[in-house]
């Protein structure tokens, strides 16, 4: 076989990893579907599990008409966008948080011995089709929000919403991987990851104007979920702009997922290289 250049080699590795992940995932799905009733119950539980946040939004808006200057349909739309993104990341990549478990049990070494990336193997091995259920409620919320917020679905709006969803999904995926890397340095601290992933998801359901300066700065820089969801959705629904965000931020904001993924990939590589097994 001809020598592959560095870029072709890297692309080839990615393609191979994707194939491995897909294979493992397909096997998991087959086993998951073996028990139809059980799967049905699980699926229902997943659909309903995402409901708690909507309960909160409904309850809060039963008392006030606006939160941070946003009306209920606008917040529901924002919720829909950001939680679809989160659900997509959750469906595909969130199993990476099992690194801590695998490292503690000494099973992680097995993955490193195989001719495929450990991330792809972990993600494929622990794939759960039932998590698809988590897309149902936020998708409904997105549709409802668009209708109730009087948003006209022209090309610009569709493009912004798509960017927001895809950007949020990629960003949360990067967050999942990045925070999972903590396991290489301190496997017991895995709950810290939830503060950034689930905490970020919760925080991005509400307009960034709800938070005071400190928290807001974090939501735009350290855990930049507001760039991927608040900025584009604000432009879509036409909510007030007290933060004086220029118009281009709505379009460019979601692309923060790209450098975020880069950082996640780098830290993942670093963590793996540093990893020294305890042996088992």
């Amino acid at each position: 076989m001809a020598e592959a250049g560095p870029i072709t080699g890297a692309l080839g590795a990615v393609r191979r990893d994707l194939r491995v992940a897909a294979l493992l995932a397909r096997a998991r799905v087959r086993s998951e579907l073996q028990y139809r009733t059980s799967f049905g119950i699980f699926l229902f539980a997943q659909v309903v599990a995402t409901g708690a946040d909507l309960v909160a939004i409904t309850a809060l808006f039963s008392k006030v008409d606006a939160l941070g200057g946003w009306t209920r349909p606008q917040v529901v739309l924002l919720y829909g966008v950001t939680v679809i993104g989160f659900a997509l990341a959750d469906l595909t990549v969130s199993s990476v948080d099992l690194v801590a478990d695998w490292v503690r049990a000494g099973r992680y070494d097995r993955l490193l011995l195989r001719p495929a990336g450990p991330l792809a193997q972990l993600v494929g091995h622990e794939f759960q089709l039932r998590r698809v259920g988590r897309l149902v409620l936020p998708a409904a919320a997105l549709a409802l929000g668009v209708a109730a917020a009087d948003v006209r679905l022209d090309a610009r709006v569709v493009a912004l919403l798509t960017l927001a969803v895809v950007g949020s999904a990629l960003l949360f995926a990067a967050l999942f991987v990045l925070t999972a890397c903590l396991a290489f340095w301190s496997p017991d601290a895995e709950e810290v990851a939830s503060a950034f992933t689930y905490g970020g998801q919760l925080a991005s359901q509400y307009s960034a104007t709800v938070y005071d300066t400190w928290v807001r700065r974090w939501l735009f820089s350290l855990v930049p979920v507001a760039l991927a969801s608040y900025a584009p959705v604000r432009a879509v629904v036409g909510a007030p702009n007290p933060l004086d965000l220029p118009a281009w931020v709505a379009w460019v904001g979601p692309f923060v997922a790209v450098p975020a993924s880069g950082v996640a990939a780098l830290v993942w590589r670093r963590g793996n290289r540093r990893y020294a097994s305890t042996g088992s």
Partner: protein
Amino acid sequence: MPFAVERATGTGGARTPESRPVDGHPSGSVPGPVGTYLAAARSSFRRQTTYRVATGAGVFTNTVFGFVLASVLRAVYAERDLVGDLDVVRALTFTFVAQGLLTVMGAFGWREVAERVATGDIAVDLYRPVSFSSWWAAVWLGRAAFAVVARGVPPFLVGALVFPLRLPERPATWVWFLAAVGVGTLVASRFWLLVNLAAFWLLDVRGLVNLAVLVLTVASGFVVPLTFIDGWAGALCRWSPFASLAQFPVEVFLELRPGWRALLHALAWLGALEAAVRLTLHRATRKLVVQGG
């Protein structure tokens, strides 16, 4: 598993304990059931103290969530001064106290018994000469006692640095509050035990646990204070056992609810759930086949 229990002989105190030297028991006699439960609780507590990093991580996450939820609530109070009997300071205090109670009430789920059913280890628990349900209550209380201090206090302290929080004005409130939390966590332990006992029929209770977490967190007031939920939904939550997990104890802390009323509600549900646990356990163990080992 806290197996650091002195060997207990006899059946629940029906016989007097024998007085002979036993390993690790200087007084020279075997403890009765109460001593066993205390030992189980103590072991459970001590086991939690070894997870220092995990506890720290948990506190960090609780604090972050507290900040997010408190910010959202503060935005609500930018629009109006009072919601029910909660003003902004009480609402913010509610958030941080409730965050501290999450682990105490097992709000993230608890599958210890269900896992033991799945592996067959449950046979060991059923063979013990002490009440199954009381044993797990003791283990739970040990864990909860640690959580009250380690997970309950720090997020509140950090929150108090940034948000205006309210401490009880009357010293008696602290006693009522701790009592309400104590009985509340027992109610939670019965609820989770009931959910786990479903494993005798369902084998895999993870879906059920997910649903239970959702119901519990919403109906307890963890997601949003029940003060914000009106109508039949709010009434249903307030009549449920879950209200005594967060809403009522925190209302006692905020001096909005008399302690005896909260305790009455919690004790009533404790009785009902304990009866349900015993009944379910009886049905489950009537015909039991343990596979593997």
